[in-house]
Every structure is written in structure tokens, then in C-alpha cells.
């Protein structure tokens, strides 16, 4: 029990530190990559290659004067940044990030809390983040902030349904919500990585995750051309920083989830060396590295998309969520369940690479007409044309 407590506390400290430092570096990475995409330099003065820029920003935000609007609801105004910050950092707790670490006192699973409720916990905690945003917008007593908060609440709950339904597809194959079991299920071969049998679910999940984290092309809650800074217009100094940290921590969690649910988690492709005991330190380090690499790829995707796609209009955003993503997810679950029934119950296949590739074929067949229709906004344009235009 003592060993378990010590291991837990060490894991908690390490994970929290890694996320906070990761978030700091991510803010720098975002600015440097955006500069690179726009063919300019970006922050490169503070420390080598600007590496100390996040530290300077943090210090500045800690010491800057804070404004508190006179008409604001004081209690909620102070509470809102914490309500955004806490769930953003809590959600990562159930994600396994490496093979178990052997110690003289026993193996330590590399996950803060391997809860049996698994990604249901992430769906639950993830949706709590909306309270911070809505209360920030409402308590500021600023019309722009209020609009930002309202928009974000409607947007986040709309895409949450698509997000939840795309994870049901993962559940169908894994048969379990515990994330370490989801990872174990994907370790058979490269093709049992869920992105192959569940390609469309991955697509839905990615779109919904972008909307859930309020990132472009779905960043309407803080659309700076319309709403100044959206829900955090009135926030300054450390409280503003906390919203910023929450946004980037949410991105890290979403990226870690994409890697875990669809890209094999900490599994190293093309080898079974890392899958099974005896656990060694080398295995732990290698799987940690692979997991970090996968997460970084998705974080880069986030930044890349931000500087590539224009923002949606609000009616387009709601139409995409309710009229495209939701029915797509429903039909997909029905088709997938039928395909699994045919392959497993009728043909008697067990789950292996062949099974996964058959499902992958189904995904490709579905994807071709889908993207043909979705392309160039045909579907979105026609679905809003009745009222608008």
C-alpha cells in the first residue's frame, strides 16, 4: 500500500509537470509554426530559439495588473478560470502512456488512474469544461463575452454527441471502456490499430475534438473579428493565463485520446517486442517515446489546420454538427455492427488483421461517396440554403 501511494504521488507529480511544461512549449510551438507557415520569424529573442519565451510570458502574467469589471459577478468571475483549468488537467488521468515500469517492488502501470470506467470518464470530465467558458462569459457582464460563452456552450454540446458516438465504434471492437484494454486490443498487428477498421469513426472523432477544444475552424467562442476575444475578453493576467493553459491542455488530452483510441496508444508498430512481459526499462522508455511522438503529430495537425482553414459561420457550424456528423455517426454504428455480425457470427472469423482489413475496406467504400458529397461544402451549403442565402 505504501509502495502504491508513493508510486501514485510520483506519477501525479511527473504527469502534472510534463503537461504544464508541455503546454508552455506548445504555446511557443504554435507561434513558431504559425510564423513558419506565414513566412516570418516568430518569437526567437528570449533564450535560444525563443525557448524561454513561455517562461517570460508566465512571469509577466503573474505580475501584471488584474482588472475586475465593476458590474461583474465577483465570485463566478474568479471561479470561472479554475472551472476551465481543473477539468482540462483532470481528463488526462486515465490515458495510459507507456508499458509498465518494472521496479524492485513490483510493476508500475504508466497511467495516473486506470479507472475501469475509462473513456466514459473522459467524456464526463471533458464536458465539464463548458461550465468554465459559459460562466466566464456570463459573469463578465460584457455583451461580447456573453455571446462567446453562449456560442461555446451550444457548440460544445452539439459536437459532444458526435464525439460520444464515434467512441461507441471503438467500444464495439474493444468490448471494454478501460483505455489500457483498448490499447491491448490494438497490439495484434499494425492493421488492428483502430484507425484502419474504424477510419470514419476517427474522422468524426477528429472533427468533434476540434470543435470541443474550440480550435479553428471551430473557434467561434473567441472569434476575434466578431467578439473581441470572446468569453475571456474581460480577463487579464493570471486568470487569462489559466484559460490559455486550459485550452492547450485540452488539445494535449484530445491528441492523447486520438493516439490511444485509434493509433494503438503506446504500441510500437511492426514488432511484438513491446507488447508482453517481462517488462524492462528499455521497453518503458521506447513506448513512452513512441506515445509522445504520436501525440506531437496530432498537436502539429491542430496547429497546421488552424493556419490552413478559414472559420465556419455559426449556422454552418450547427448544421455540420446536427445534420451531418450526428446522422453519419448513427448510420456508421449500424453498418459497423452489421458488418461485425456478418464477419464474426455468419463467417466465423475471429478478430485479427484479416478482420480489421475487411472492416477497413468497408470504411473506404463508405468514405468515397461521403467525401465526394462533403467536398467543397456541397452538403453544408445545401443544408443551410433553406433559411439563408
Amino acid at each position, binding site marked *: 500500500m505504501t509502495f*502504491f501511494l508513493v508510486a*501514485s*504521488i510520483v506519477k*501525479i507529480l511527473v504527469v502534472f509537470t510534463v503537461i504544464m511544461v508541455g503546454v508552455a512549449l506548445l504555446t511557443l510551438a504554435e507561434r513558431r509554426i504559425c510564423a513558419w507557415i506565414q513566412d516570418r520569424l516568430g518569437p526567437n529573442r528570449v533564450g535560444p530559439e525563443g525557448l524561454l519565451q513561455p517562461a517570460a510570458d508566465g512571469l509577466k*502574467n*503573474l*505580475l501584471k*495588473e488584474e482588472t*475586475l*469589471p465593476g*458590474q461583474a459577478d465577483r465570485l463566478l468571475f*474568479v471561479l470561472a478560470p*479554475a472551472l476551465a*483549468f*481543473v477539468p482540462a*488537467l*483532470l481528463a488526462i488521468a486515465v490515458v495510459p502512456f507507456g508499458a509498465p515500469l518494472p521496479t524492485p517492488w513490483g510493476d508500475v502501470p504508466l497511467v*495516473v*488512474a*486506470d*479507472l475501469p470506467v475509462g473513456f*466514459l470518464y473522459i467524456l464526463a470530465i471533458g464536458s465539464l469544461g463548458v461550465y468554465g467558458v459559459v460562466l466566464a462569459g456570463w459573469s*463578465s*457582464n*460584457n*455583451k*461580447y463575452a456573453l455571446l462567446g460563452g*453562449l456560442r461555446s*456552450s451550444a457548440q460544445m*454540446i*452539439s459536437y*459532444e*454527441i458526435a464525439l*460520444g*458516438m464515434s467512441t*461507441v465504434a471503438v*467500444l*464495439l*471492437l474493444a*468490448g*471494454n*471502456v478501460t483505455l489500457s484494454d483498448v490499447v491491448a486490443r490494438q497490439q495484434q498487428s499494425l492493421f488492428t490499430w483502430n484507425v484502419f477498421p474504424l477510419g470514419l469513426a476517427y474522422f468524426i472523432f477528429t472533427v468533434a475534438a476540434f470543435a470541443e477544444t474550440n480550435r479553428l475552424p471551430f473557434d467561434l467562442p473567441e472569434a476575434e473579428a466578431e467578439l473581441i476575444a470572446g468569453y475571456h*475578453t*474581460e480577463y487579464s*493576467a*493570471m*486568470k487569462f*493565463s489559466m484559460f490559455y493553459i486550459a485550452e492547450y491542455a485540452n488539445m494535449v488530452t484530445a491528441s492523447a485520446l486520438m493516439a490511444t483510441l485509434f493509433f494503438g496508444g503506446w504500441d510500437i508498430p511492426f514488432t511484438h517486442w513491446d507488447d508482453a512481459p517481462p517488462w524492462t526499462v528499455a521497453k518503458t522508455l521506447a513506448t513512452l517515446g513512441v506515445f509522445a511522438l504520436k501525440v506531437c503529430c496530432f498537436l502539429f495537425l491542430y496547429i497546421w489546420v488552424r493556419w490552413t482553414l478559414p472559420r465556419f459561420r455559426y449556422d454552418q457550424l450547427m*448544421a455540420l454538427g*446536427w*445534420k451531418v456528423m450526428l446522422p453519419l455517426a*448513427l448510420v456508421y454504428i*449500424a453498418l459497423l*455492427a452489421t458488418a*461485425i*455480425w456478418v464477419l464474426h*457470427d455468419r463467417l466465423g472469423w475471429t478478430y485479427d488483421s484479416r478482420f480489421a482489413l475487411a472492416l477497413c475496406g468497408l470504411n473506404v467504400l463508405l468514405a468515397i461517396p461521403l467525401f465526394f458529397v462533403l467536398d467543397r461544402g456541397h452538403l453544408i451549403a445545401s443544408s*443551410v440554403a433553406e*433559411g*439563408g442565402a
Partner: protein
Amino acid sequence: MREPYVSFLLYAVFVVANAALLIGVSHFAAPRRPTPSKLEPYESGMPPLGDAHERFSVKFYLVAMLFIVFDIETVFLIPWGAIYFSGDGAGGTGPGMGFLLAEMLVFLAILFVGYVYVWKRGAFDWD
């Protein structure tokens, strides 16, 4: 079995303490020199007109209600998904895969009728 929840509680306490620390430290470290114009809400430099806590579009309530309906459908799908494939209907003693599939297709069909109804009533149109 309860161990993961202990770790989770420790982590939750740690995160909440950190949030409180961040707000607390900046409260004492930062200077505070309020002036009347600093205390006004920032609305693009225009003098704010009226209060922000007014009525807002009923559309937002509609979205919230639809969310609850469809989110509960998702909750119903999750336990079904968990036993569908790997459990073979609770270890071979359950109803079997074909029955589970038929059951869920009926459920989805009923859900879809409701979905088409709200679409036709214009609940998804954002004007």
C-alpha cells in the same frame, strides 16, 4: 479494485490545489490600481449601453434540450457496445449477437424517426 480511484482522488486534489494556488498567488503578487474606466466592460471602446444580462435567443435552449435527448441515446449505446462483440452476449449464455444486433437496429430506427421529425420541424435550422 479501488486503487485507481485513490490515485484519481489524489490527482484531483492536487489539480484543484494548483488552480487555487495560481489564482491566489496572482491575487497577492499583482498590483491593483482601479480607475473608473478600467472597471467598465470593454466593448470595443464604445461606452457600454445597458446591461449584458438580457434575454438571449430561445434557440440555445432548444439545442440544450436536443442535446439531452441524443446524449442519453449515446449512453444507451455504450453498454450495448461493450457486450456486443467480445463478450458474445455475456460469455455465450447471453442472447447472442444476432439478437443484440436486431435489437439495436430497432432502437436506432426509432431514434431515426425522431431525428427526422425534429429536422422537419426545423429544430436544426439556425436563422
